[in-house]
């Protein structure tokens, strides 16, 4: 009887060690929620800006003079701030979790996760910048969603596997958005905002609830 229990403990230990040594398991659900909230806030600000310009409350003369550059500039800054905010808050909650679980944050598993996420995102970023240079603004939001989705699917091998489903969600939204151009901001808010929050809540409920 006790040998039976010992075997079970051994197998559990083996599984735990395999996961800890190959996957980055401290990713917190709260990080997802925080990133989602930042994305929604960013989308809201961008929406306000666009409406303000379109309605003409924001010095329409300047917009015409500069051929839309001023609006793009402002949107670019909103996007950058959103990204920085999301990244810092996501990092913060994951840092807390790794402290709490006493698992190291900077192992080789982390480095592997980092590269496998960054490569699709960096390629996507270059691609999107070039698309904007060529004036293809309609496909910017779908491209963001698609490349991010691919990054998540790729990353799922190196962290909690469930992130794969978040990736599938982003991919579906991104592809749908290709045929609903002009609603990019809504798709964007849905993917980066709502999906992140839903994913974060599920993960938090599953792994971190006390």
């Amino acid at each position, binding site marked *: 009887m006790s040998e*039976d229990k010992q075997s079970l403990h051994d197998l559990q230990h083996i599984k735990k*060690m395999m996961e800890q040594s190959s996957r980055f398991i401290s990713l917190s659900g709260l990080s997802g929620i925080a990133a989602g909230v930042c994305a929604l806030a960013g989308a809201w600000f961008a929406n306000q800006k666009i409406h303000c310009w379109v309605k003409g409350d924001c010095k329409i003369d300047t917009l015409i003079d500069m051929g839309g550059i001023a609006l793009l500039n402002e949107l670019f800054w909103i996007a950058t701030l959103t990204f920085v905010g999301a990244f810092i808050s996501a990092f913060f909650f994951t840092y807390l979790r790794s402290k709490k679980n006493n698992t190291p944050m900077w192992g080789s598993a982390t480095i592997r996760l980092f590269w496998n996420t960054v490569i699709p995102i960096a390629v996507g970023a270059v691609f999107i910048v070039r698309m904007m240079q060529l004036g293809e603004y309609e496909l910017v939001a779908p491209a963001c969603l698609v490349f991010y989705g691919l990054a998540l699917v790729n990353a799922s091998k190196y962290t909690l596997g469930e992130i794969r489903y978040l990736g599938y969600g982003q991919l579906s939204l991104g592809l749908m958005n290709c045929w609903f151009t002009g609603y990019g901001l809504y798709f964007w808010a849905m993917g980066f905002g709502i999906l992140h929050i839903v994913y974060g809540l599920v993960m938090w409920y599953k792994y971190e609830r006390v």
Partner: protein
Amino acid sequence: MMNPIENLNKLFDSRIRLGIMSALMVNESVNFNDLKELLAITDGNLASHLKALEENGIIKVQKGFIGRKTNTTYAVSKLGEKAFKQHIEALEKMIKGTK
């Protein structure tokens, strides 16, 4: 029926060695410091277990340098992979056998 305990490998009869083997099975190679952090044990303790596994041909050792610091990495050998899989199967059989 064959007694499954016979298939349990004495070499893996320790939590630390199970941990080392688990990490090496799912990674191409792991260096000394990462193993130490993963298992949360002292240098000497880890080194003695690694030595035992190495001497039995279970793991392969590669010594290298990063700058001036030594960087020793460990990987599982063909023999080790087979032996560890058998060990896991034996553990599984023991659980199933008593149900």
